[in-house]
């Protein structure tokens, strides 16, 4: 059974106890070390998360109070919260129909030749740095006397949100069982009817989930709003999207650029509120997704 030459180093006695022979001890050590490194990497990532969140919570908690949330500057940041809510709501209104329509196009209508370019467009849109989107909307609408406005910032955010909503919707549309579509076709039901009354309702939880997640992303986006809706001082409530609106991420940014320690406290407080909202959106969407997945695979 020897292959060629005598190889005493690698012969083994099959009847020996089943313990490591040859170089196996060393290989086990290498394997364990590397596995340890992988565990360490994961632990490090979670540790960073905990450290950052803990810093926000511990520094921001002291700023939080009822006044802080509801009053305008200088006591609170109420207008900023309202402003962000208005801008994000507008952005969602703009982005959601487009995201869903594009996803519908890809899943129901696109042939093999049109799928790739549209998918590519979505991927590129998804990877656009938000500063680029900000500069674009600025150039298009704000420069040359256009002026800042809440809705323009919402438009920039919508551009960022559309690929996220489209991608999430695509995934859910894919999950809708093929036989439902086939049944509708066999009954002679028009495409548009089956889409509106069967497919979309089945995919709705997933679409909402994708929307919530993109809202969470948009709420924290600073660059677009920095360029397009940053001039409002936050000392008065404003919901008029035709003018600039005070908002949360820009305020945090401005406070971080000033060297004022009191401002820092306000920034920590704002950060805490922002993270809390994002966390809530994330958890809520995940719960929604799990519930709908369970229903669909039943």
């Amino acid at each position, binding site marked *: *059974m*020897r*292959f*060629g*030459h005598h*190889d005493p*180093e*690698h*012969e*083994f*006695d*099959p*009847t020996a*106890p*089943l*313990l*490591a*022979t*040859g*170089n*196996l001890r060393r*290989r*086990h050590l290498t394997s364990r070390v590397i596995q340890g490194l992988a565990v360490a990497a994961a632990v490090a990532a979670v540790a960073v998360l905990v450290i950052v969140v803990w810093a926000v919570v511990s520094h921001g908690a002291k700023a939080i109070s009822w006044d802080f949330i509801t009053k305008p500057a200088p006591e609170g940041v109420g207008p900023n919260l309202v402003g962000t809510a208005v801008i994000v709501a507008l952005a969602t209104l703009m982005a959601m129909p487009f995201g869903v329509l594009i996803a519908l196009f890809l899943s129901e209508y696109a042939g093999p030749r049109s799928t790739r370019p549209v998918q590519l467009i979505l991927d590129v849109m998804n990877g656009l740095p938000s500063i680029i989107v900000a500069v674009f909307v600025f150039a298009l609408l704000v420069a040359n006397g256009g002026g800042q406005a809440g809705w323009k910032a919402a438009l920039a955010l919508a551009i960022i949100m559309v690929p996220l909503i489209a991608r999430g919707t695509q995934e859910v549309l894919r999950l809708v069982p093929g036989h439902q579509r086939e049944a509708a076709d066999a009954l002679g039901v028009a495409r548009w009817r089956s889409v509106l009354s069967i497919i979309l309702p089945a995919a709705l939880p997933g679409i909402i989930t994708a929307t919530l997640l993109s809202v969470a992303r948009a709420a924290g986006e600073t660059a677009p709003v920095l360029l397009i809706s940053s001039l409002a001082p936050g000392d008065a409530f404003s919901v008029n999207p035709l003018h600039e609106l005070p908002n949360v991420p820009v305020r945090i940014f401005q406070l971080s650029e000033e060297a004022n320690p009191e401002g820092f406290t306000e920034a920590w407080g704002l950060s805490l509120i922002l993270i809390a909202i994002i966390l809530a959106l994330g958890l809520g969407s995940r719960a929604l997704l799990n519930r709908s997945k369970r229903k669909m695979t039943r």
Partner: protein
Amino acid sequence: MTDIDDLADIDREELEEPLAMNGRGHEEGSSAPRRIRLRTEPLPGVIGPPAATESAAESHLHIAPEAVFEAQAVSIFYGKKQALIDVDMRIRRGQVTALIGPSGCGKTTFLRSLNRMNDSVPSFRIEGSIRYHGHDIYGSNVDTVEVRRRIGMVFQKPNPFPKSIFDNIAWAPRNLGMRQGLQERVEKALRGAALWDEVKDRLKDSALGLSGGQQQRLCIARAIAIEPDVLLLDEPASALDPIATGAIEDLIHSLKGRFTIVIVTHNMQQAARVADRTAFFSLETRGEKPIGTLIEFDETEKIFGSPRDPRTRDYVTGRFG
């Protein structure tokens, strides 16, 4: 049962015959003994220990055909579901043992338990004991990597690495530190798997470009390149066309004697062609659920010619499917 029967089973000439390398009859050095080590303690049941001072050439006359595997009262569970019940079996060195039976009767489960490949299934549980050369495979200090180094396995679907043909074969030897004579080792492994002539000019090509039958022979070559003690084959030809299947069967014939081989097959004719001993598994309903059971285990001619158990007879004569 004493092992005098076992002694009688050994063919003296078989021991002294030089080992054939492949169908072309390229032969080893004539005095190369099989890899049997002198034991200082006797195996249970063996009559008298071989004297330590005997020369290697004389000593093999006294050595009993060891049981490579001894399974005692083996029952296997996946969570609450029981897949196998109470299997007792002894697998002998140098022989080809076939496990046959209808699908779902636990033969693959049993095979994979022989080299602890079932460990990766989370709900796997085993009762009873499987001994390999006397050592409990599921013992507490057992190194599973070592187990798999000694007991190799070829799977139903060919699963070559996305590497060149050469690197596929050379990968495991390199891990084991066998850097010298690697070229030779790869060539011998490919010859042993009856693949050398077809690939010798394209060793650097990707293994994924080979046909299904060639990929499977590559996997066999990969397994024998590290010279394991045992080869477990899990339905190696079931994913292949008839011509490739024939090549695999010839291959098993040529490997017989150099390795202890256990092969699972749902193809009875294949078992009849290649195996020395055959084990027939089937599903028996105990209580509510059917559980895999070892019905009969004997020499292949007996199983197919004059089976003792009516269930065996039904199966091998095709009375049920």
